[in-house]
C-alpha cells in the first residue's frame, strides 16, 4: 500500500513538471514574450536582458562593457549568454535560445530542490527515531517536502514570469540552490562552486556561508542538540541511542580550500577578460559598487528606489549604511537561535536578502517561496498563512495596475506604485517573522513531548 501511494505520488510529480515546462514553452512562443521583459517587477538594472545585450554589443565593439552605466553584471555571464542575445533562428521567436537556457536552469533548480528536500526529510525521520518519538508523532502523514518544494518552485507564477521575461534570475537562483544542495549532500566542491558563483553574480548570497558552515559541520536540520542529550539521559538504562555527532571542523577546512580555489579561478577569468578596460577594480566598482550605492532609481518591487529619490543629499550615505547594516545585523541573532536548523537559516537569510536588497525582483521572491516548501511539516502551524497568500496574490495583481496608472496613463503618481511595494515588503516581513516563530514553536513542542514540561 505504501509503495503504491509512493508510486502515485511520484507519477503526478513528473506530470506537474512536464506541464510547467510545456506552459513555459507556450508562453515563450507568444509574440514578444508578452512584454514581460519590460516589466519593472521582472527586470531590474541588474537582471535586465536588454542591458545584457547592450553590454555584449559594447564588448563586441571593443569597448569596455561597463563603459556606459548600462551593464552591471558579471563578465562571465556576458561571455556565456552574450552570443545568445544576437543569435536569431529563422521562423522562431527572437530570443528562443536564451529562454531555453532559462527553462533548463529552472528545471535543474527544481531537481536539486527535490533532492535536497528528500535529504532533509530523511534526516528529520532519522532524528525522530533517535529521539524515540516515532510513536508519538504520526510519521505517515509527513508530506514529501522535497516534491512539494520542487513543484512550488516550478509552478510558481513568479518563477514562470521571471523565466519567460528573460531575466538572469533563474541562473542566480540555480547557483544558490546548487550551493545548498552541495552542502546538504556533503559534496564540498559543488557547494563551494555554487557559493562562489552566487556571490559573484549578486553580492547578497555571501551571507549564506554561515548556513553552509553549519550544514557541513553539523549536518542537515534536526531538533536542538539539548533534546538529544535529555533523551539520552532519560533512556540511558533502556536503550543505547546514538547521539548525533558534534561539530566537526574537517569539512569546513575542506570547503574553505575549495572556495578559495574557485574564487581565484573566477577572478582570474574576469581579470583576463577585462585586462584592457580597467581590470578587476572596474568590475567591482560597476557591479558591487552599483549594488551598494543604489545609483539607479528605476522603480521596482522594492522600497529603496523611492526612498533614495526623495532623501536629501546630505543623508544619503547614512541611510545607505543603515539599510545595508539591517541585513548584516540580523545574521548573528538568527544564527545563534537557529543553528541546529541550517537549511531553515538559509531560507530566512534568502528571504531577508530578497526583501531588503537594492534591486529586488519577483525572481528573488520565487527562490525563497520555493525553499519554503522544504519546511511544510515544521511550518504546519504557521499563523496568518491565508492572509499572506491572499496578500501575495493581491500585490501581484495590483502592482502592474499601479505602474500603468503612473507611467503610461499619467493619472496616478509615484505614491500609488510605492504603496504596493511597501505592502509587499510588509507581507514579506510578516512571512519571515511568523515563519521563525512557527519553527521555534515546533521545537518547543518537541521539547514538551520529551521532557513533559513546557
Amino acid at each position, binding site marked *: 500500500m505504501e509503495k503504491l501511494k509512493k508510486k502515485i505520488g511520484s507519477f503526478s510529480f513528473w506530470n506537474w513538471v512536464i506541464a510547467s515546462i510545456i506552459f513555459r514553452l507556450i508562453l515563450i512562443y507568444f509574440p514578444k514574450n508578452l512584454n514581460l521583459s*519590460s516589466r519593472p517587477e521582472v527586470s531590474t538594472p541588474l537582471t535586465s536582458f*536588454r542591458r545584457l*545585450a*547592450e553590454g555584449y*554589443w*559594447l564588448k563586441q*565593439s571593443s*569597448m569596455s562593457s561597463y*563603459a*556606459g*552605466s*548600462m551593464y552591471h553584471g558579471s563578465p562571465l555571464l556576458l561571455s556565456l549568454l552574450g552570443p545568445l542575445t544576437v543569435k536569431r533562428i529563422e521562423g522562431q521567436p527572437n530570443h528562443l535560445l536564451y529562454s531555453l537556457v532559462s527553462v533548463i536552469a529552472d528545471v535543474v533548480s527544481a531537481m536539486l530542490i527535490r533532492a535536497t528536500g528528500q535529504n532533509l526529510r530523511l534526516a528529520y525521520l532519522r532524528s525522530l527515531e533517535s529521539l524515540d518519538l516515532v510513536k508519538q508523532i504520526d510519521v505517515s502523514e509527513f508530506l514529501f517536502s522535497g516534491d512539494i518544494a520542487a513543484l512550488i518552485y516550478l509552478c510558481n507564477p513568479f518563477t514562470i514570469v521571471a523565466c519567460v521575461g528573460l531575466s538572469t534570475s533563474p541562473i542566480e537562483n540555480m547557483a544558490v540552490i546548487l550551493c545548498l544542495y552541495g552542502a546538504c549532500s556533503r559534496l564540498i566542491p559543488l557547494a563551494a562552486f555554487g557559493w562562489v558563483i552566487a556571490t559573484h553574480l549578486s553580492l547578497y548570497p555571501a551571507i549564506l556561508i554561515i548556513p553552509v558552515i553549519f550544514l557541513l559541520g553539523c549536518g542537515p536540520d534536526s531538533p536542538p542538540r539539548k533534546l538529544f542529550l535529555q533523551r539520552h539521559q532519560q533512556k540511558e538504562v533502556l536503550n543505547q541511542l546514538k547521539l548525533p555527532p558534534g561539530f566537526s571542523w574537517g569539512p569546513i577546512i575542506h570547503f574553505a580550500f575549495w572556495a578559495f580555489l574557485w574564487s581565484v579561478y573566477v577572478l582570474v577569468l574576469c581579470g583576463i577578460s577585462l585586462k584592457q578596460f580597467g581590470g578587476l577594480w572596474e568590475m567591482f566598482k560597476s557591479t558591487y559598487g552599483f549594488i551598494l550605492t543604489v*545609483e*539607479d*532609481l*528605476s*522603480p521596482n518591487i522594492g*522600497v529603496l*528606489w*523611492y*526612498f*533614495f*529619490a*526623495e*532623501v*536629501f*543629499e546630505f543623508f544619503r550615505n547614512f541611510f545607505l549604511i*543603515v*539599510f545595508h547594516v*539591517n541585513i548584516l*545585523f*540580523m545574521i548573528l*541573532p*538568527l544564527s545563534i*537561535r537557529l543553528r541546529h536548523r541550517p537549511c531553515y537559516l538559509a531560507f530566512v537569510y534568502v528571504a531577508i536578502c530578497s*526583501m*531588503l536588497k537594492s534591486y529586488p525582483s519577483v525572481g528573488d521572491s520565487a527562490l525563497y517561496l520555493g525553499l519554503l516548501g522544504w519546511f511544510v511539516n515544521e511550518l504546519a*502551524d504557521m*499563523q*496568518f498563512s491565508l492572509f499572506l497568500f491572499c496578500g501575495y496574490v493581491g500585490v501581484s495583481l495590483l502592482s502592474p495596475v499601479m505602474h500603468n496608472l*503612473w*507611467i*503610461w496613463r*499619467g493619472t496616478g*503618481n*509615484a*505614491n500609488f506604485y*510605492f504603496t504596493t511595494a*511597501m505592502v509587499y*515588503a*510588509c507581507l514579506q*516581513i510578516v512571512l*519571515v*517573522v511568523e515563519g*521563525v*516563530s512557527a519553527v*521555534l*514553536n515546533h521545537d*518547543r513542542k518537541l521539547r514538551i513531548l520529551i521532557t513533559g514540561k*513546557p
Partner: protein
Amino acid sequence: MELSFTQGRWNYESWGGFDPISSSNAKPPGVELWAVFDVPQHHIDASWKNLTHTLSGLFCASINFLESTATYSTPEWSFPPASGNVRYGTLPCEAVCTENLTPWLKLLPCRDKAGIALLLDRPSLYRGFYHSQRGRCVLAKSSSVYLLLDRGLVAELKFPNKENGKSAANGLTSENFWSNPSFELSVNPDRIFLEESSSHSKSLSILYMFQVEKYSESEPFDIGLMWKVPVAWLCQQTPLHASRFLMGSGNERGAIAISLKSTQFTEGFMSANSKDGSCELRVDVFQVVPWYVKVYFHSLRVFVDQQPRAVSDFIEKIHVSPSKDKMSPGVMEVVLKLPCRVNTAALTIEFDKGFLRIDEYPPDANQGFDIPSAIISFPNFHASMVFLEDDSLNRSPLLSKFQEKCPVMSYTEVLLVPLTTPDFSMPYNVITIKCTVFALYFGSLLNVLQRRVAEEERFLKAKAAKKTGRLPLLLSKLSAKLRGSGINQD
C-alpha cells in the same frame, strides 16, 4: 572658439541650406559653444570650465551650466580639427534676451545710439522668427552693406515663369542688371560681384556692395528693395533634408528617429552622376544625448527607402561614447554611406527614460527635458562662394569668409522628452514611512528570536486568574481567535 545665441529655428525648407550663410551661420536654438584647446590633454577640462565661467560673466547668460561634465562632450570626427582637443556643449532651452546684446554693443564706440547698431532695434529683433548672434566677428576697414542674391533667385529672375507672361529673357550684364523689371533698388550699388562657377548649380549668385562712408547725416543711407512683380524662388537646399523626432509613448521608454529625405538637389546631383553607377552620398551624424535618456546602442536600426536594412551595409564608421549616470552625456557619431539615388533614409535608436532625484529636476519639472540638436553634415559638398574680385589688395573680409571651405551642415530639431516625476511634496513622508517599515522588521524579528514562551504563558495564566470580569475574558478569547491557531491550543 565659437559661441552663438539663437532664438528660433532656421527653416531649412524655405530658407535653404547650401549657401555659406545657412550652412555655417544657421545655429541650433539656445546657446552653442565649441572650442579647440591648445593645452595638454589633462588641462583641457579645467580650461573649459574657466572658459564657460568667463563667457557667462561677459554675456550675462547661464553658460556656466556647461561646466559640469554631464553637459559637454568630446566629438571626434564632426568638427574640422579632428583631434581630442575639441569640446562641444549646448544649452537648448536657454532663452536669448536683450541682456545678451549688450556685450556686442559695448564693443562699438557709440554703442546703440548711432551707427550700424541703430539697426538693432530690440522689439523688432526679438519678434522675428529667427535671430542669432555669433561670436566670430571679422574686422573690416570700412563699413559696407552687402545684398546677396541667392542662386535660386537669380535662376528665377533669369528665366521667369512662363505663366507670368513675361517671356522676355533678361540679358545678364553686370552694368545694368539693376534694371531688371522684377525688382527695383532705391540705391545703386557701388560694386557688383559675380560668383565664379559653382559645381552644384547652374546659376550663379550675385553680390551687391554698398559703401556706407559715402553717405552722411544730410544724405542718409536708406536702402530699399521693391518687388515689381511677385517672384517666388527656391533656395538651394542641402542634399538631404534632415529632421528628427521622438517615437513611442509613455514615460518609460521611447525611440529617437532621424529621417533624411531627398530634396530637389539630390535629383540634380543624381542626374549629374548618373553615369557613375556606384556613387555614394556620405552623411555624418553627430548626436549628443543627456545621461537621463539612456540610449541602447545595440538597437540602432537603419531604414533605406522604407525598408529595414542591415546596419553594416550602410554604416561605414560609428563611434559611441556611452553615457555615464550623472557624469557624461551619450555621444554618437555615425558616418553613413547612402546610395545617391536614395529617396528616404532613417536611423532609429531606442532609449529608456531615467529617474532623477528630486533635487535634479528643474523648477518646472513637468515641462520635460531637452535633447540637443543633432548635427548632420555632408563632407562631400562644400558650401562656399568664390566671387570674382579685381582689387585683390582691398580684399573684403566678408568675401574671404564666403570663400572658406566648410562642409554643408544642418541642425535638426531640439527634442523635448517628458520624464516621470516623483511626488515632490513627499520627502519627509517617504522617509518616515519607510523607516517605520524597517523598524517593524527589525523589532518584530528580534522579539520573536528572544521570546521565552513558557515564561510568557505562566505570566498570562497568572494574569488571567486575577481577572474576574466577563468582558476582559471575552476580549482575550476574541483576540486569541483572530490570531488563528493560538499558543494555548492543544
